[in-house]
């Protein structure tokens, strides 16, 4: 594979950049693979990459209904963080932070990981107490966390509304300085390019129509481009999980909902890092191009439409304006939606299933992007070793029946409530 570097850039400049190798091939599906990963999103691509790299399993296919980068990996708001309170989520995502830090070098692709911090704002004494508790939990797990008072916040985001008239005054906040953002497309492309180089077949525009299960064991899948035999199959399809589960006669603790995001016109550098509003559901960061990237609540009803309705955008931006009045002067560039696999406790599932050789990776709710590397890493381990890794040992399917929930936000089963 051609290595990307300043030298290859100069060399290709002489031929007007006409002779770059394709980043990944467009193979026709073979009749049989050791492992088939369904879903060519960030998590699926990362899973295939780590299967090849960490476990030397290279006879792998990724089956994608659409195209690489067209789903949630290209629709998220690019936030990377590990500011979780529960041990299982904190350890899992902090391991992921270590993978993020070296990802550009490892993939030979600049994913523009930019750890400029995340600030969760507090608007009451009770919220400050809750953040102090969460910050302490994070520190016990080796994650950096700083409790900020009002003056600290004012130094970091002076453009927020600190006047006396506001309905939800800023009391302070909890900051994870090592959190940040990355370029989401580059993550998908980087993983795809490396996985392809190690022998993984990335098969796009290929829809899974059924499964071959014999005596409780997976034998292969049926697709729009023919039947494919497989010793092991990994489901990694986010919002489409229930559609495929239905074909397997499985019912899961997952509901699919639409989440919208939006960006403003680009402006000069204004906001460093990510800020979340604590009195409503609104978060904001500034992209490298200068756009303000914003998101918030789900539309709040089951949906497979990759677009939402305007009342939710209006509601989210009402919160945004309460925090940052300057936003009222910006034009909205575009809004879009992606479909989320909302689990019943707000935490993901990476596990084996009751069908031998079938593995499940779902339930990412709002936060799949930040976990892309660690999700792929642990899912690859689970598939290759046929057992969960210590990192995902609490992210199992049976935690719902056994009562070992990871309800980070304490919302109960209605995680789609804003």
């Amino acid at each position: 594979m051609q290595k990307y570097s300043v030298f290859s850039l100069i060399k290709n400049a002489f031929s007007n950049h006409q002779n770059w190798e394709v980043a990944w091939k467009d193979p026709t599906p073979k009749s049989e693979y050791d492992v088939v990963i369904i879903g060519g999103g960030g998590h699926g691509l990362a899973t295939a990459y780590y299967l090849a790299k960490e476990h030397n399993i290279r006879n792998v296919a990724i089956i994608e209904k659409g195209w690489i980068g067209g789903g949630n990996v290209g629709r998220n708001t690019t936030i990377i963080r590990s500011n979780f309170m529960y041990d299982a989520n904190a350890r899992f995502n902090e391991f992921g932070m270590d993978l993020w830090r070296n990802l550009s070098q490892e993939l030979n692709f600049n994913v523009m990981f930019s750890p400029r911090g995340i600030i969760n704002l507090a608007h009451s004494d009770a919220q400050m107490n809750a953040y102090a508790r969460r910050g302490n939990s994070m520190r016990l797990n080796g994650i950096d966390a700083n409790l900020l008072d009002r003056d600290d916040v004012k130094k970091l985001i002076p453009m927020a509304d600190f006047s006396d008239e506001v309905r939800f005054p800023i009391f302070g906040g909890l900051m994870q300085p090592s959190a940040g953002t990355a370029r989401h497309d580059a993550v998908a492309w980087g993983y795809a390019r490396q996985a392809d180089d190690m022998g993984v077949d990335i098969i796009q525009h290929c829809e899974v129509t059924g499964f071959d299960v014999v005596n409780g064991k997976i034998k292969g899948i049926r697709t729009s481009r023919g039947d494919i035999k497989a010793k092991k199959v990994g489901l990694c399809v986010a919002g489409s999980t229930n559609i495929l589960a239905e074909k397997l006669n499985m019912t899961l603790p997952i509901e699919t909902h639409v989440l919208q995001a939006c960006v403003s016109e680009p402006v000069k550098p204004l906001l460093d890092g990510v800020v979340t509003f604590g009195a409503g559901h609104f978060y904001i960061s500034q992209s490298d191009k200068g756009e303000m990237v914003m998101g918030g609540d789900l539309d709040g009803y089951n949906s497979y439409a990759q677009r939402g309705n305007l009342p939710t955008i209006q509601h989210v931006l009402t919160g945004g304006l309460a925090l940052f009045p300057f936003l009222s002067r910006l034009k909205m560039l575009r809004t879009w939606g992606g479909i989320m696999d909302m689990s019943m406790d707000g935490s993901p599932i990476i596990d084996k299933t009751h069908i031998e050789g079938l593995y499940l990776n779902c339930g990412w709710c709002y936060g799949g992007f930040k976990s892309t590397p660690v999700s792929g890493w642990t899912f690859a381990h689970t598939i290759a070793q046929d057992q969960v890794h210590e990192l995902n040992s609490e992210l199992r399917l049976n935690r719902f029946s056994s009562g070992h929930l990871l309800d980070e936000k304490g919302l109960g089963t209605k995680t789609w409530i804003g």
Partner: protein
Amino acid sequence: MLYIKCPYCGLRAQKEFSYGGDATVKRPNINEEVSSEDWDNFVYMRKSPRGKHIELWQHIAGCRQWIKVQRDTATHEIFQTAKVTEEIR
């Protein structure tokens, strides 16, 4: 914006309503032995179909009644609404 026909008040904007989830989930009967599996299915397991979905909404900023709505989860088209005591077929 969705427009939902409340069986009590007529056609109203989505903003007046609050979502209540899958209406086909049945709570296990009170005062009867409930297996862990049945309870698990009631509390956590959801079909979440792509297509027609019967769901609960509450007309929170109107008559405050709970109603049933049959809606397409892919196109958001609403086919039928009914009182919560009525069946949608």
